[in-house]
C-alpha cells in the first residue's frame, strides 16, 4: 500500500473507532483508559523509530514526554503572563500546544543527539538516563511551572468537537497515534528506513556504503523526541494537576521500551501490538487491583518475552511464515527433482 493510501486508510480507521466509541461508550472511565493506551501507542512508536530502527536504546522517554507536558503548562500560563505587560492574547488552543511541544522536544532530541550519538551501545543508554535526571532537576527547580509542588491546570469550560473534555483529549490522542504510525510506516519503506536498518546492523559498513550515519541518527532522535513531546503535550489537561511525579513517572521510560520489545521492534505493527496489550492489561489492573501492580506486570512480561520471544510477537509470526515458506520451497524442489 502506498503511503498516501495508508494514511487515508489509517485516518479512516481512527475516525471510525472514535465515532463508534463515542456513540457506544457513555462511561467517562473508558475514555480515560483508552487515552492512556493511545498515548502509549504514540510513545512506543516514537521510541521504536530510534530504538527499533537504528538500534539506539533510549531510557529518556520520560524527559521528552515531560518537556511536551511542561511546554503546554507554560503556554497555558502565557496569556496571564503577557497580560501583566498589557499584551492580550487568547488562550492557546491545545492543538497548537501539541505542535509547540513537538518542536521543543524535537529540538531537545536534536541537541541530545549531537552530544551523545558518538557514544555506542550501553553508553548512549546511560546518557539518555542522565538526560532524564537533568530535565527533572530543571523542572523541579522551575517555579513558574510549579516546581516540585506542581501546578493546577483548569480545563477550558467548553470542549471542541462536542462531548466532554476527556472525549476531546481521546480524539486528539487518536489523531496523534494515526500520525505517528503513518510516519513510522513511511520511514520503514523509505530510503531513510533502509539507512536506519543499515546503521542498526553495522555502522561501519553503513558508512562504507555511503550512509551519512550521524545525520540519520540525528533525524531519528529529533523525530522520536518530537513525537514523544507531542504525546506529552495534552498531559496537563488530562491530569489537571501536573507535577514532576506524574510527568516523570518511571513507567513512561519502562513501558516505551517494553512495548516495542513485546510487540516486535522491526516493524510499525509491533509497537502498536505491544502498547495495546500492555496498556490494556495495565489499565485493567489499575481498576481491578492497584496501579502499583503496573511496573510488576511490565517487568514480568518483559522477562518472559526476552527469554521466549526476543523478537516480539511480530517476530514469532514472521518466524512461522519463514518456516512455512521453507517447507513449501523444499516441497517444490523435491517435485522438481522427481520430475
Amino acid at each position, binding site marked *: 500500500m502506498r503511503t498516501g493510501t495508508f494514511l487515508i486508510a489509517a485516518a479512516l480507521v481512527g475516525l471510525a473507532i472514535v465515532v463508534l466509541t463515542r456513540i457506544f461508550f457513555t462511561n467517562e472511565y473508558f475514555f480515560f483508559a483508552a487515552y492512556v493506551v493511545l498515548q502509549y501507542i504514540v510513545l512506543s512508536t516514537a521510541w521504536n523509530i530510534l530504538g527499533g530502527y537504528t538500534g539506539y536504546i533510549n531510557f529518556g522517554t520520560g524527559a521528552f514526554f515531560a518537556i511536551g507536558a511542561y511546554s503546554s503548562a507554560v503556554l497555558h500560563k502565557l496569556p496571564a503572563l503577557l497580560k501583566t505587560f498589557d499584551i492580550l492574547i487568547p488562550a492557546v488552543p491545545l492543538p497548537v500546544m501539541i505542535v509547540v511541544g513537538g518542536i521543543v522536544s524535537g529540538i531537545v532530541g536534536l541537541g541530545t543527539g549531537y552530544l551523545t550519538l558518538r557514544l555506542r551501545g550501553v553508553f548512549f543508554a546511560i546518557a539518555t538516563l542522565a538526560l532524564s535526571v537533568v530535565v527533572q532537576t530543571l523542572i523541579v527547580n522551575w517555579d513558574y511551572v510549579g516546581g516540585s509542588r506542581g501546578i493546577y491546570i483548569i480545563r477550558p469550560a467548553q470542549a471542541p468537537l462536542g462531548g466532554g473534555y476527556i472525549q476531546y483529549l481521546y480524539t486528539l490522542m487518536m489523531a496523534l497515534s494515526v500520525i505517528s504510525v503513518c510516519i513510522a510506516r513511511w520511514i520503514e519503506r523509505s530510503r531513510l528506513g533502509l539507512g536506519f536498518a543499515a546503521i542498526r546492523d553495522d555502522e561501519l559498513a553503513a558508512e562504507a556504503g*555511503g550512509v551519512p550515519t550521524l545525520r540519520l541518527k540525528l533525524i531519528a532522535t529529533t523525530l522520536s523526541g518530537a513525537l514523544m513531546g507531542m504525546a506529552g503535550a495534552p498531559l496537563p489537561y488530562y491530569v489537571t494537576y501536573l507535577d514532576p511525579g506524574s510527568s516523570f513517572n518511571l513507567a513512561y521510560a519502562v513501558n516505551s521500551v517494553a512495548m516495542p520489545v513485546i510487540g516486535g521492534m522491526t516493524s510499525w505493527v509491533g509497537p502498536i501490538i505491544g502498547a495495546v496489550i500492555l496498556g490494556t492489561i495495565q489499565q485493567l489492573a489499575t481498576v481491578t487491583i492497584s496501579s502499583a501492580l503496573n511496573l510488576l506486570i511490565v517487568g514480568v512480561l518483559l522477562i518472559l518475552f526476552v527469554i521466549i520471544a526476543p523478537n516480539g510477537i511480530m517476530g514469532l509470526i514472521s518466524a512461522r511464515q519463514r518456516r512455512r515458506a521453507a517447507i513449501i520451497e523444499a516441497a517444490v524442489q523435491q517435485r522438481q527433482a522427481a520430475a
Partner: protein
Amino acid sequence: MSAAQTAAGPLLAVSGLGKRFGGFVALENIDLTIAEGERVGLIGPNGSGKSTLVNCLCGTLRNETGSVLFDGRPLDGLIAHERTRLGLARSFQLPKPFHTLNLIDNLRVPLLYTVNARPGHSLSDADVRARCEELLQAVALADKARRLPRDLTQVEMRKLELARAVATEPRLLFADEAMAGLSPSEVEEIIAVLLRLNQQGITIVLIEHIMRAVMSFSTRLLVLVAGQKIADGLPQEVMRNPEVERAYLGE
C-alpha cells in the same frame, strides 16, 4: 574533474601517513601513489598494517599524520561516507553484512546512498532492482537474492561483501582478503570478477595472502612489513628483492 586533470596526477597519492594505536605504531610514514587503471597487490605478513592502511584511506580510522590526495583532492578530514561518494570503496576483511536485510536490500544501501547521492544520478526503483540482480549475478548469488545473510556460507558472505563494495560504482576499490578460505576454482572466479571490473575502468588494490592469486592479478606489488613500506614495484622484481624474501616469505 576534467580528463586532463585526471590524467595529470595519480588517482591516489599518500604521503607521510602514520597511524598509532596507543603506543603501538601500526603504520609509519607511508608514501605511495596509485595510477588510474592499475591493479595493485598489497601484501605483507599478518599484522603488518594492510587493513589499517585501508581503514585510514577509506576514513574508517583516522590517521594522525600524513595526507591523502584522491584525484588531486585532499581527503583529510572527510568522513567515510563522503570518501565512498567520491569513489573509494572497500570490502571488509571480516564480512560485515547488514544481517537483518536480505541480499537485495544489502545492495540497495550503497545504490541509494552512494550512487543516487552523486550529482546527476537518479536510479529509478526499476533501475535499482535491475542493478541489484546484475551485481548478484556477477558473484553467483542471484538465486539467494531474497535470503538473509545468515543463510549464506562464509564464501558467499565474502562475495556479498565484494558485491556491496562494487555497488558503490567506485573508481578505486580495496578488496581486503576477498578470497580467504576459497577453493582454487572460487579464487579463479573472484579473480575473473576483479579483472572484469578493472577492464571496466576500476582501479583495484588487492590485499591477499594467496600468492598465486596476487601474482596472476597484480601489475604492481606493494609490501608492508611492521607498518612500513619495504618494497614497491613490478611483481617479479619485488619477489626477487632480498628484503622482501627475508621479511615476508622467509617467515
